[in-house]
């Protein structure tokens, strides 16, 4: 079996420096967005999906596990946060906390089932689990079925920041995204991340070296699900609703597509991929179902000719790791 990302470069001081510079550039760009006249709602939405794709990428790019059900974390955290804010009247920080905690719990339960199989089966199992959850959410009353939970109040974060103001909300979302991104960045470069990469490259060898690979994979899955849930909780403040589309399999497919376009197993690829796909959806919104067709075409083209993705190709060209 050929690994998903073929030319892994050794991590050196230069690699870390390159990634730090790229991180600085990304942060600077995000901070100046409100002064550029760019539509902040678009950037906020893209950032939520970027964090989601980064969390997904932690699993596929570094653990070799393709989850086709990551929408379940997005949707679950979204529903719980929206319900907590609207019905229980919790503050935003508590709402995010319970939403993320719900995703973590879901990660533990589904992880214990899914990690029992690898490769192609893992993808089918996660897809089936998310479809199971979709049908549960269709039937449970608190999700309000097809309508979803609408008109979620944004409130005051920590009692100070008025999230109804779009500039304030924008910086809060940027802060949340950067926090999640740094957690992933740290995980990738930790001893834990190194073990994950070794499992991706050759699981048998990792087992023979004494690593309990199932536990590592489970932990990576839970972490990925929790961060995906965090992105889902943040998204509630941007969209002010939580609906069934966020739990449906098409959403899981979009997460995969974003990561694939940006570059599987690259640090910054999922961020770029999320912006590309969200922008495409914005501009092509008038074309109806053709958007689905175009997404399909992108999938096919990426898999056939462009497997490294945007960032992966750039990194490969410059022989750098990004």
């Amino acid at each position, binding site marked *: *079996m050929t690994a998903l990302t073929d030319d892994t470069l050794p991590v050196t001081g230069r690699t870390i420096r390159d990634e730090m510079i790229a991180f600085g550039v990304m942060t600077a760009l995000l901070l100046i967005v409100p002064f550029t006249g760019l539509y902040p709602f678009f950037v906020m939405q893209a950032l939520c999906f970027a964090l989601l794709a980064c969390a997904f990428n932690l699993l596929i790019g570094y653990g070799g596990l393709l989850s086709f059900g990551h929408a379940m974390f997005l949707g679950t955290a979204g529903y719980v946060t929206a319900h907590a804010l609207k019905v229980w009247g919790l503050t935003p920080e508590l709402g995010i906390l319970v939403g993320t905690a719900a995703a973590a719990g879901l990660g533990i339960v589904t992880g214990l089932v899914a990690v029992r199989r690898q490769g192609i089966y893992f993808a089918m199992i996660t897809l089936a689990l998310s479809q199971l959850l979709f049908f549960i959410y269709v039937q449970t009353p608190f999700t309000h079925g097809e309508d979803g939970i609408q008109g979620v109040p944004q409130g005051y974060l920590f009692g100070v920041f008025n999230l109804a103001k779009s500039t304030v909300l924008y910086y809060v979302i940027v802060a949340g995204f950067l926090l999640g991104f740094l957690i992933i960045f740290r995980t990738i470069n930790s001893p834990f991340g190194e073990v994950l990469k070794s499992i991706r490259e050759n699981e048998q060898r990792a087992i023979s070296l004494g690593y309990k690979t199932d536990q590592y994979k489970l932990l990576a899955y839970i972490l990925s699900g929790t961060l995906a849930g965090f992105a889902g909780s943040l998204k509630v403040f941007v969209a002010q609703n939580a609906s069934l589309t966020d739990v449906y399999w098409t959403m899981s497919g979009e997460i995969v597509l974003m990561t694939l376009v940006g570059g599987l197993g690259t640090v910054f690829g999922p961020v770029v991929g999320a912006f590309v796909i969200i922008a495409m959806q914005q501009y092509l919104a008038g074309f109806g179902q053709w958007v689905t067709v175009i997404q399909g075409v992108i999938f096919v083209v990426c898999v056939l000719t462009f497997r490294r993705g945007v960032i992966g190709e750039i990194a490969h060209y410059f022989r750098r790791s990004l």
Partner: protein
Amino acid sequence: MQALYAQLLVGLINGSFYALLSLGLAVIFGMLNIINFAHGALYMMGAFCAYFLLNIAGIGYWPALIVAPIVVGIFGMILERTMLKWLSGLDHLYGLLLTFGLALIIQGVFQNYFGSSGLPYAIPDELKGGMNLGFMFLPIYRGWVVIFSLIVCLLTWYLIERTRLGANLRAATENPTLVRAFGINVPRMITLTYGLGVGLAALAGVLSAPINQVRPLMGADLIIVVFAVVVIGGMGSIMGSIITGFALGVIEGLTKYFYPEASNTVVFVLMVLVLLVKPSGLTGRTT
């Protein structure tokens, strides 16, 4: 009791489709090492093909039962020759991603032209009406679907497990390089296998057209259930796929009668239970 038997029959019919689709998935996976995400879309194409044959060319149900699987099968073989072929040697997951993209394209195009609502397809005259079996009323078409699917499944099993062609196929699954050394054209065999799997899906589509109407998204949710069926049964054995498919259909039918709220989820719940007890699936080998 009438309602119970009726739900059992619905379960058997769904089971027929699960069996035909999971059988195709297993055959394709064996040869190509690809999980064919486009299987649901190709099933839908089978139904649309029958619909077009009837409404454009005036060709009825019986010829469609043969023509539609061949047409869609050839379409599948073109996909294999032009795209899937290039993925051999790469990670399995790329096959899943590529066929997922193909499913989006096919379903999107059909949705664009036909919306999301269903198109009617009439039951052929010969199979209209029903029989009173004493304990229940059996619509003839429904009984036909179950029996015909079972026959097709068993014929496929016979083809793969008992004929010379099947023996070559199984050998090529184990070790393609060695089989090529014997002078057997393995790439052509791979293409034909994909065509066979796709043809089975299209056949299921034609069979379902009079029952479930013809809709662009008719295969989209079905394929996820079939994935769960495949996880439960494992892809190691042909007969295993057939039996698991029918059995899960029946269980789903029973659930519809005894606890309808869970009828959508029962297959997924069973998948979780099987994974907890026997992770390799009921008939599968560990992978």
